[in-house]
């Protein structure tokens, strides 16, 4: 017994020595939240750390809701979120919503024989599919948008996120903004009450969406653009979506950029704005800012300084906005004007 205790104690001391040796080096920051931002954050932190050895930044992919809540409670310094905070939340706990990058979402499907073609889909058609009114791939409403493509008479399996997610937020915004019946029905949010559709499937996280869509023939899913490599590998097709001007556009750097610049000038000082269903002939309709949710009143002055420094680096052209980071996850850099707004917000951190 004595021996075991002594051993345990020694192990504790050894581990402590290991740990504290590093901890003494400087402050530590905790980033937690969006699983879409998580891969980018990991790339960023790994690189940032090379020149900033005095600060430790821990990253966690927990989900946007956790990110926001833990930034508010002070557990985390940076809460990553795909969605900006709602007014009701801002009222009870005012936080900074700082855009870090621009992301998009593609609509993927698995229709044997058609996955190499880009189907044309619109908000109302997607709303019809997800509310169970459009049941078959060869439905008249889908066929009307896709002349010359032979659609199969098979039941559609709509796949949605089961966990709370910024992807659900922007997807349901696209449906709400383009389809009045959806707006008055399920509406939008990070979790919505999905209409009960017999063969609809819930999946956890974007990887779950990719896997489920790949495994399920005649299914449809909405998946964050950071998973583009994965959806391509899985052989899924992705749709050209109808934008506000009535044109069908594919998600790519130029259409995402077009949408971002169309709404960039409308971005308010607190930067809480939806980029979904942006005006402009070339604008891709489902894009969003990825946010860092930060408490402007930090408890620790040292942490506040390091936090500001890291965030400034993250939005800098020669810092986090470099193509070698963003391209890896298919994000786009922030337009110059947004960088300025973000800088002003970061300055408020104390």
């Amino acid at each position, binding site marked *: 017994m004595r021996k075991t205790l002594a051993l345990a104690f020694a192990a504790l001391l050894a581990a402590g020595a290991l740990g504290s040796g590093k901890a003494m080096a400087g402050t530590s920051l905790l980033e937690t939240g969006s699983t879409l931002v998580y891969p980018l954050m990991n790339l960023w932190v790994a690189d940032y750390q090379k020149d900033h050895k005095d600060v430790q930044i821990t990253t966690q992919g927990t989900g946007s809701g956790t990110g926001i809540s833990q930034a508010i409670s002070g557990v985390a310094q940076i809460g990553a979120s795909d969605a900006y905070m709602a007014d009701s939340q801002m009222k009870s706990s005012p936080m900074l919503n700082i855009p870090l990058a621009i992301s998009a979402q593609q609509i993927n499907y698995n229709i044997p024989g058609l996955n190499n073609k880009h189907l044309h889909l619109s908000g109302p058609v997607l709303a019809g599919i997800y509310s169970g009114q459009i049941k078959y791939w060869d439905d008249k409403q889908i066929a009307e948008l896709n002349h010359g493509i032979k659609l199969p008479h098979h039941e559609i399996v709509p796949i949605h996120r089961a966990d709370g997610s910024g992807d659900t937020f922007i997807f349901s915004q696209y449906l709400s903004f383009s389809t009045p019946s959806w707006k008055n029905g399920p509406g939008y949010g990070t979790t919505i009450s999905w209409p009960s559709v017999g063969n609809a499937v819930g999946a956890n996280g974007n990887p779950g969406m990719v*896997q489920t869509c790949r495994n399920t023939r005649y299914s449809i899913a909405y998946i964050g653009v950071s998973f583009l490599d994965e959806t391509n590998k899985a052989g899924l097709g992705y749709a050209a979506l109808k934008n506000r001007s009535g044109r069908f556009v594919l998600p790519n750097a130029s259409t995402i950029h077009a949408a971002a610049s169309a709404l960039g000038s409308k971005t308010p000082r607190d930067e809480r704005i939806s980029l979904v269903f942006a005006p402009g002939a070339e604008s891709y309709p489902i894009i969003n800012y990825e946010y860092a949710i930060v408490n402007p009143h930090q408890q620790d002055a040292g942490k506040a300084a390091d936090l500001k420094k890291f965030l400034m680096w993250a939005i800098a052209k020669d810092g986090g906005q470099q193509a070698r980071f963003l391209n890896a996850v298919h994000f786009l850099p922030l337009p110059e004007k947004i960088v300025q707004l973000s800088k002003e917000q970061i300055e408020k951190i104390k």
Partner: protein
Amino acid sequence: MASMDIRVGDTARAVSPAALQRSGSQTILAVLTGLAALASFAIIFLMLFFLIAYAYPAIRFNGIEFFTSGIWNIGNQYGSGTMTRNGFSAQPGASFGALVFIFGTLLTGALTMVVAVPLSLMVALSLVYTVPKRLRPIANALVELMAGVPSVVYGLWGMVVLVPWIGEKLAPWVTAHLGFVPFLGGSAGSGNGLAASVFILSLMVIPIMVATTRDVMLAQSNSLFEASMALGSTSWQAMTRAVLPSVRSGVVASVLLAFGRALGETMAVLMVCGAAINSYPENIFSPVNTIAAVIVSQLESALTDASGMAQRSLAELACALFVITLIINVVARGIMRGADRREGRAA
């Protein structure tokens, strides 16, 4: 603990228990260990009390709807205003009906028992009676080691191997060829769902059930089996008429314990269940959801609810799961104790 001087020769002292009770170090030890012994009480009651207190606003807000409605909707966090019921408010449009999750929990648990109980009995019988003596320790060790495999590792295997196999091979074949059987026809789904959850849960509870039923059989049935055989029964008769009835209560208790385990299992189920929300399974390949999985997957979105009602409703779910498993455990332990006492073993 470090210094213990053993004065064994100190025989002058009286050794009557009453005298010993009065000794100082004795009292201190009794009090300290007594405090430690209170811990398990304290944990259970604190947990119950705290969760109920935390969930109270949700219990009032949700009322009976919690058990009768299958619509789980945290409300529109981007909407304006709040909705108030019984003095507690939530986001507009909120509805916290847990029936889908409660039903899913009991269904996966029950189906797991349907699959795992006969299998475990068979495996236990085989370990006790049919495996050659030399292989027995190896077979026992294998089954016991498997009881230690972490839940995430089962989940990992489920995600990467089992779910694609069900989705691509099993489900399409079954729905095409056996679709006329109720609950086997219809949509083949994605592989994530009831079948995958039950498969994984069965694997997780079988080693536990095997170990306990095997021990019961070893302790009880040896003489019975041999006496029965000596009286000229076939081994089949000895088994079904002598052995199984005699271990019944032990087996029932271990089944209940495994049932409780299956209801509360989180990670592995979360990784393969298909996370159904607002919809009930239509066949064995349909997505389902369990209370434990929902608590992990929905905490995330509950945290975005500024009114806090979603988080408190999850606490209400945790309470419900806690109470269900508590009842099952208490009953199981009661049966075990009863059986022990009846059969004259030390309780």
